[in-house]
């Protein structure tokens, strides 16, 4: 017997796929299918989030994932992750140097002004969240004018050449610990090749959070901000932009830029502490970074990085400081999968539960209680 005839269950699954796709296409009389460039541009923050949580920098497939998932970020990230499982590893780059980022936005809350200036960039931070009714009937002409007018009169000579890291200034004064030379020698923990077995190094925590689900990270970080913890962060620097990815030339071995990835990076300065070796106290640091333009995630991550460091050295005194609690519950694919699985048949286990309950109730009726 070489095959199994598809009966009830199989037909139900096929039916559900068809009706799902119908819902995507049902207004086809009035419009065309979403094209991937539209998703990538007009829904860029949703798109960036999917890249970030999928853990694969493939803008085109991420757009496709958004399209096929009808905009569900968990499902779209899921599709990207599953795609990643089929890909062999071709090479490993050197650590990305974010000081070489092609900046699109960069601010610091720690200082009024910083070398290179406070560049607000494309942020909604100071927008009034009022409904833009003028967009209700936006015409293609109005749409085109926005982009064509933006470049008029821009003086590109005003753009600074470099944006030095704010932390460098603090480091020169000795207010934050010096960079350890050991750091570059230790290979980072690879969460896609090794399971997390606690205690885990800081690099494992950072990479888990880098592709963590935004809402989960925000909720736990928020608990710390509100008092279940005491990181008390100040944003030393938040930068958004494109970081070059370097690989050695196959013949000369010289590092070559093979492309760039959009990233958000946040460095926070937290409460200061005494040093182990008795030298003067310094500020402690928290670091967050992710693919795409996602500031809430980068800031949450930086706060959790700091709280987890506290938890790993002194022992956790609240959930945000507990590595097991944080790292095992922020992965969107794991959590949504398990949540969804409760809809699967569980009637055999339920049968077993009913048996136990009935037996116990019968025992009480029979007065067999000792």
């Amino acid at each position: 017997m070489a095959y199994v005839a598809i009966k009830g269950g199989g037909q139900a699954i096929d039916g559900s796929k068809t009706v799902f796709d119908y819902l995507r296409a049902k207004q086809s009389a009035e419009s065309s299918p979403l094209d991937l460039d539209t998703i990538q541009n007009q829904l860029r923050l949703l798109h960036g989030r999917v890249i970030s949580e999928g853990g694969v920098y493939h803008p085109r497939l991420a757009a496709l994932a958004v399209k096929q998932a009808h905009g569900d970020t968990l499902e779209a990230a899921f599709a990207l992750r599953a795609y990643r499982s089929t890909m062999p590893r071709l090479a490993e780059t050197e650590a990305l140097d974010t000081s070489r980022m092609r900046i699109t936005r960069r601010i610091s809350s720690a200082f009024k002004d910083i070398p290179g200036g406070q560049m607000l960039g494309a942020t909604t931070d100071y927008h009034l969240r009022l409904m833009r009714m003028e967009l209700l009937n936006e015409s293609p002409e109005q749409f085109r004018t926005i982009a064509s007018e933006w470049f008029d009169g821009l003086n590109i000579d005003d753009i600074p050449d470099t944006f030095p890291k704010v932390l460098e200034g603090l480091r020169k004064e000795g207010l934050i610990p010096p960079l350890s030379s050991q750091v570059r020698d230790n290979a980072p923990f690879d969460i896609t090749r090794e399971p997390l077995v606690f205690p885990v190094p800081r690099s494992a925590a950072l990479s888990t959070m880098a592709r963590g689900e935004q809402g989960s990270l925000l909720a736990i970080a928020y608990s710390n901000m509100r008092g279940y913890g005491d990181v008390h962060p100040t944003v030393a620097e938040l930068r958004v932009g494109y970081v070059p990815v370097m690989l050695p030339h196959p013949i000369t071995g010289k590092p070559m830029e093979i492309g760039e990835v959009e990233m958000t990076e946040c460095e926070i300065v937290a409460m200061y502490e005494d040093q182990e070796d008795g030298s003067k106290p310094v500020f402690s640091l928290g670091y967050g970074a992710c693919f795409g333009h996602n500031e809430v995630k980068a800031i949450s991550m930086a706060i959790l990085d700091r709280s987890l460091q506290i938890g790993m050295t002194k022992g956790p005194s609240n959930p945000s400081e507990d590595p097991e609690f944080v790292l095992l519950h922020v992965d969107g694919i794991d959590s949504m999968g398990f949540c969804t699985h409760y809809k699967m048949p569980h009637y055999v286990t339920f049968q077993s539960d009913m048996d136990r309950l009935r037996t116990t109730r019968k025992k009480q009726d029979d007065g067999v209680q000792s």
Partner: protein
Amino acid sequence: MTTNKSFGFMDEYAKKEIRRSSLKAVAIPGYQVPYSSREMPMGRGFGTGGLQLTLSLIGEGETLKVIDQGADDSVNAVNLRSFIEMTCPGIHTTTSTTEAGVIQSRHRIPERPLREDQLIVLQVPYPDALVVVEASEDKRKILHGEADYSRLLVKLYEDIVKFDEITISHRYPTRIHGHYVIDPSPIPRWDVPKMHQSAALILLGAGREKKIYAVPPYTDAEPLAFEDVPFRVEDFTDENGQRRPCARCGCTTSFLDEYIDSSTGDYVYRCSDADWCNEQLMDESLLEVSNG
């Protein structure tokens, strides 16, 4: 856009790691081997752990059976089976327990005793029996290492004090080879004795929790209990003390599904193991033929 050409969906490195983890699991019966579980196209909680095991271990020409709640046509089983067929060209699929070489199952072990040449892969949501008494994985590892299951046993003690019974229904903690206590997956108590001295290798895969563990062939598997309060399986006797038969094939020795008939409103009891039920029916009709 590249398409995947790897047999078994995952790349060779991933399959190699899973095979090595399985070997380690067999070498240390009942020990949960951590592995870096890959994401599959089905959700975590839908059997990705069992799936990764099957995909890494099955080969061309081998025969696969997939069941969920004992049934081959349950939605989850159908989904998994088509995916495995799609990604492992050259395998056969079957609903027959006797014909299968690899059986992937959710929540049941087949009624028919398995043979040495067969392999059963169980889908596991919670690999660790101690999770009910200790939330921290780090602390649980120490308890397992020292075979300190006193807190779990106290739970059983408190059950007996309160209810005169051990009230654990499925996922009954079971000690393997005298040391590690495992969560045998949400199989009913009915199926736990099948793990003891099984001729077939039993592999258990937890995809989301990222653990593989095993009950090797001919290994002791003892459900935790007290000498004087022994382990008991589910009871299928009716109000008159008669063991209920399957309404379809008449069998009185199988685990029964209970449900309400949508037309009559009566309670109906049928074998949970679909293939077993079919076999019973076939045996009966053969019997009739030979008697008739």
